[in-house]
């Protein structure tokens, strides 16, 4: 059991999202950084679909009221369990009375806290995720606040090394690149943008502005102008879509995206790179790389292989541990 001492304003319970209600207007929600969320779960032997706590930016503090296994994965935030410095991906056991402190995030945008078996919240419409606009799901349909208590679903302790477990996280940036590169496919109105706009979009960096949240990130860079005007009829949109309103500055829709919209769409970021945007914070720079559908399909396979490798490595570790006991 863990008690919230302090938290940034928008910490919510999330999982991999709520699918199947798009035609009733309900967006997917779910973790902004699915990679970190999933790894936090896997390190405790949970399914990737178990509920975690998503903590965006600012500092946070928790107190363990009972002995409890936990995992903490995500941005660099100078995390401490009492005096002990924790790595960026850690799973271990805290004793009753210990304090988990997270400092300001210096790299990345959120941290995920997982408990054994998942954080215990009711499943609604097939998911544990919080729907912030509709006020349901997650922890009483709301953001977490001081004095809230989080309980693990499992009472058994997962198999973990005595001093805890750490692993290497994939980097959102490519080696030697200062920008986060996002692979994307051209979308519906791509060809109606001017040649200069298209060239700028696929080569120049766009900066994440402060007007960025779980719904979407507003970007700033070379203005993207269209050769045609006129309003579009409302149509479906999904997380990853890059819309360009009249002002010419792009918006990337993310986890809490609406299900329908009306702005022109220049590109769609592939699902496998959404966690990279999730790691971006205001003033970080994003660049878009055009890929084919074949490359997008390959990216999905690559991600499956990577997650399988993590699962295998963790299973091998557990096997060894059991052998020693």
């Amino acid at each position, binding site marked *: 059991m863990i008690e919230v001492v302090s938290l940034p304003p928008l910490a919510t319970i999330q999982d991999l999202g709520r699918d199947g209600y798009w*035609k009733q*207007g309900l967006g997917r929600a779910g973790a902004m950084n699915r990679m970190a969320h999933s790894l936090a779960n896997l390190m405790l032997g949970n399914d990737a679909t178990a509920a975690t706590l998503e903590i965006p930016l600012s500092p946070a503090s928790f107190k363990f009221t009972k002995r409890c296994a936990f995992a903490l994965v995500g941005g660099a935030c100078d995390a401490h369990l009492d005096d002990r410095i924790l790595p960026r991906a850690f799973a271990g056991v805290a004793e009753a009375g210990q304090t988990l402190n997270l400092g300001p995030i210096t790299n990345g945008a959120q941290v995920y806290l997982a408990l054994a078996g998942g954080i215990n919240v009711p499943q609604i419409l097939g998911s544990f995720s919080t729907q912030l606009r509709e006020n349901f799901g997650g922890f009483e349909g709301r953001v977490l606040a001081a004095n809230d208590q989080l309980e693990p679903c499992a009472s058994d302790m997962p198999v973990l090394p005595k001093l805890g477990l750490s692993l290497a996280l994939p980097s959102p940036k490519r080696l030697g690149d200062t920008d986060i590169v996002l692979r994307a496919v051209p979308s519906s109105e791509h060809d109606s943008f001017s040649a200069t706009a298209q060239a700028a979009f696929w080569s120049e960096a766009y900066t994440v502005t402060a007007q960025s949240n779980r719904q979407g990130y507003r970007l700033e860079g070379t203005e993207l102008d269209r050769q045609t005007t006129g309003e579009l009829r409302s149509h*479906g949109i999904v997380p990853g879509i890059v819309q360009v309103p009249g002002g010419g500055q792009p918006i990337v829709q993310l986890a809490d995206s609406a299900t*329908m919209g009306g702005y022109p769409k220049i590109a769609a970021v592939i*699902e496998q790179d959404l966690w990279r945007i999730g790691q971006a914070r205001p003033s970080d720079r994003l660049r878009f790389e055009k890929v084919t559908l074949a490359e997008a399909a390959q990216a999905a396979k690559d991600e499956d292989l990577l997650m399988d490798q993590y699962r295998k490595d963790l299973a091998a570790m557990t096997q060894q541990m059991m052998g020693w006991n």
Partner: protein
Amino acid sequence: MSATRLSMIGSRAVLFEVDCPFDLTHQERIWALTHAASTWDGVLESVPGMTNLTLLLDHVPQDLDRIERDLCDLWNTGKRHEVDGKLLEIDLTYGGSGGPHLAEVAQMTDMTIDQVIKLHSASDYTVYAVGSHAGYCYLGGLDPRLETPRRKVPLPRLPGGSLSVAGLQTGVSASAGPSGWNTIGSAEVSFFDPNKPQPALLQPGDRIRFLPKEVIA
């Protein structure tokens, strides 16, 4: 024959659009397409928009021409899905703090406030699509005389139950959120209940009738 177009809106999401008149007859053809496509292999969800259709797929598609051809062939059959939907009557308060732009809309449309209310509540509206936020209904049937431009500066937070107009569209928001439309009234109605097996109150083809209960001018 209308021009059609298929495009990617996500690595596993495609949008099929038809360049056709914006009316119930054509929307009924979109619903027919929606139902047919929802049974196809590889389609997770089939979602109607305003004379367009979004398909959420289980894999990154590799043959867009094939999907486009299948959808086009179906569209060109002209098959319509007529819905004998339910009628929801909604008591409305026009104007006041829940409808801050009523006077402006009257001014923009060159009508009196009474005329705006009479015209807006004169006929039934059909739910063309459900989306944007949970349970929100895109309605067809607004009198063209009530057409207004979207607001230059959107309101950052409008309460749920707000009745708005913009372009040839009108609707009642299902939960609090930002809005760039002109808000002319308010209602107390719950459009989405996650505890029900069918959480959205209305589905495409259902109808709404607005009953003016109070006018605060």
